């Protein structure tokens, strides 16, 4: 354990990066999931095909591949553009934070697309009709009836998506994001204690997963409060 002396604050800052990237990616994931599911449910054939291609590609390729493609792909493109203006420039990249959060959000967003699509389809059509019969516009029916009904259905699988998201943040260390796995690598370089350092990283992630799992449980209880005492 004394090998860890002096490294605690590095692990703390690394964990903070994990939290930041998690929340940024979470917002993007919800966004991609909603857009994707709307496209999949729309009558437009073009939107439907684009959304299908999106889910097939991002659910069928390894996460690390998507991440490397994004990071190195964007870097080579940006460098080429930059060199048009200044041939002296050797390398421009999207910061790993943004390349990474965009990549994992696109990946998990493709799963969220299917989850949201299923949840929207699971909403009792009778409720939607009742809202329409009361004179609520399409938009208001969507906001006040469809969304509250669908998020309860989407919550359990979405909890799993959040776990995937937090775990996928570890991959971003590969492109140089200074999160916990990256800190561990540095610590190993000076202490020569890989087992200790990686166990610490594992424990940190286990902590995050636990917090997410418990939060989802609380949310689920809140979402299903109308079902309690029902029987």
């Amino acid at each position: 354990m004394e090998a860890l002396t002096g490294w605690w604050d590095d692990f703390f800052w690394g964990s903070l990066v994990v939290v930041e990237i998690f929340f940024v990616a979470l917002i993007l994931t919800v966004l991609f999931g909603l857009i994707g599911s709307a496209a999949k449910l729309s009558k437009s054939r073009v939107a439907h095909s684009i959304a299908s291609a999106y889910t097939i590609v991002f659910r069928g390729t390894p996460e690390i591949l998507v991440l490397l493609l994004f990071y190195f792909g964007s870097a080579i493109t940006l460098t080429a553009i930059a060199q048009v203006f200044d041939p002296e420039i050797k390398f421009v990249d999207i910061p790993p934070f943004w390349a990474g959060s965009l990549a994992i959000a696109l990946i998990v967003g493709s799963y969220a697309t299917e989850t949201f699509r299923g949840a929207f389809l699971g909403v009792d059509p009778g409720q939607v009709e009742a809202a329409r019969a009361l004179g609520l516009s399409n938009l208001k029916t969507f906001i006040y009836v469809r969304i509250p009904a669908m998020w309860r259905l989407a919550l359990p699988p979405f909890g799993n998506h959040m776990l995937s998201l937090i775990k996928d943040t570890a991959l971003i260390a590969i492109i140089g994001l200074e999160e916990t796995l990256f800190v561990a690598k540095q610590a190993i370089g000076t202490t020569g204690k890989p087992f200790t350092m990686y166990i610490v990283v594992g424990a940190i992630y286990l902590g995050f997963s636990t917090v997410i799992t418990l939060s989802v449980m609380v949310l689920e209880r809140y979402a299903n409060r109308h079902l309690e005492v029902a029987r």
Partner: protein
Amino acid sequence: MSFDFALIVDSIPKILTGIGLTFQLLFLSAVLGLALAIILLLMRISGRWYLVAPTMVYIYIFRGTPILVQIFIIYYGLPQLEFVRDSIFWPILREAFGCAIVALTLNTGAYVSEILRGGVLGVDRGLKEAGAALGLSARHRFIYVTAPIAIRLCLPAYSNDVISLMKSTALASTITLLDMMGIARTIVAETYAPYEIFISVMVVYLILTWIIQRGFGWMEKRMSRHVRSEA
């Protein structure tokens, strides 16, 4: 910047030399993982706390931490421990390939046992009772009633997990293995052409995903013949 098709044509055969390793990783860890999952499942549903508790802790840890961290702990971390180096497992854990198999097996075993448990819990209580009423022993009820129905119930989720496993094999490239992903990364490091190489390997992975999906789809269809004949 242009898309170098000659490079793709050139690289695809090189990438495909890694497909054998990808397959080995996938099949070995899928089979071993399934065996592990069945053991975990039987422990989990045994109803004996000293079997149930360790299983739950195991599943909690392996589902709550990133697979990349698990791979790093096993490959980089374990050699730090003297008793590991002295143990009979050392010949396996000394090799990157052995470590990848161990990590993937332990990881997928945790997920698959939960999938199997979902299937077992999904079996209609009435059917088990019918089996009991016919005088079948608990063991026979499990083998002849519960298990066949449970397998059908969890096949779709299991097929998704095999795809996840296939995607996880790409992480073996982070511990020096030259699977498809590892070879692709090497070529990109030499040519600095991420788009061409990564998109080519992405297509290969997508084809593998498609094959796995079709394979399981066919199995599902065969297994639900009794349902279709009713409809």
